[in-house]
């Protein structure tokens, strides 16, 4: 296991509204708190907070254009998390294979 555990990513994604925000950004490529709030059952202020959490977890990045901040998904962090989950799954596969071999050895 060489990749650091990304608990902050899981925590950021655990909220369904934040997941929607991320999903909308992934679909559209870019969005502002205002345009995102138009498609979500929450206020613009709430969207700003969610974007802050996603930003701190490294899942989105914002760039200032004039008076607005446009956000986009940063796929690297999601890829890292997916890799991390795959590594954990591989570790379990290896353990279960070892257990199976042990169990199927001639019994005593």
């Amino acid at each position, binding site marked *: *296991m*060489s*990749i*650091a*555990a*990304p*608990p*902050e990513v*899981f*925590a950021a*994604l*655990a*909220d*369904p509204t934040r*997941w929607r925000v*991320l*999903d909308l*950004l*992934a*679909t*559209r*490529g870019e969005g502002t708190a205002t345009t995102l709030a138009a498609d979500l059952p929450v206020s613009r202020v709430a969207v700003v907070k969610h974007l802050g959490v996603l930003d701190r977890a490294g899942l989105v990045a914002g760039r200032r254009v004039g008076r607005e901040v446009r956000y*986009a*998904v*940063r*796929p*690297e962090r*999601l*890829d890292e*998390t*997916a890799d*991390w*989950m795959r*590594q*954990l*799954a591989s*570790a*379990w*596969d290896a*353990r*279960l*294979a*070892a*257990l*199976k071999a*042990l*169990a*199927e050895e001639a*019994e005593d």
Partner: protein
Amino acid sequence: MEDQIARDVVIAAPVERVWDLVTTAEHLGTWFGDDGADVDLRPGGALVLRWKEHSTVHGRVETVEPYSRFSFHWLTGGCDTPTADEPADGTSTLVEFTLAPEGDGTRLTVVESGFSTLALSPAAREERFASHTGGWAFELGELADHGARVAA
């Protein structure tokens, strides 16, 4: 991908033997850890797994249903930052083994869950459980790919 990992394996041995291998220190210290283990096999009991190269991981037994279910919390920290502290809810993941007879053998399923609570403060966890907002299931990789495509 969900906030859990589920794997299973069919083993050509009876559930009694598999249960023995999964729950006794003698065996856990070989196929799971590689440098011994301690298990106090009762709910709340202490679990210790040792690795020659990694150090030691502490856990706490949660469920013991002979020949069918064994679970424990442990401090994986992603397997690369084991710590000697006592695991607490929300700072550890839950590992659950389920055994079921299948033909002449046993199907062993392992589910490790709770990754999404690893980084939450106690207050945040309470709020989250109170509002029943957990239980997401999605494909991280798919979204990442999608994000990459759109960003390209």
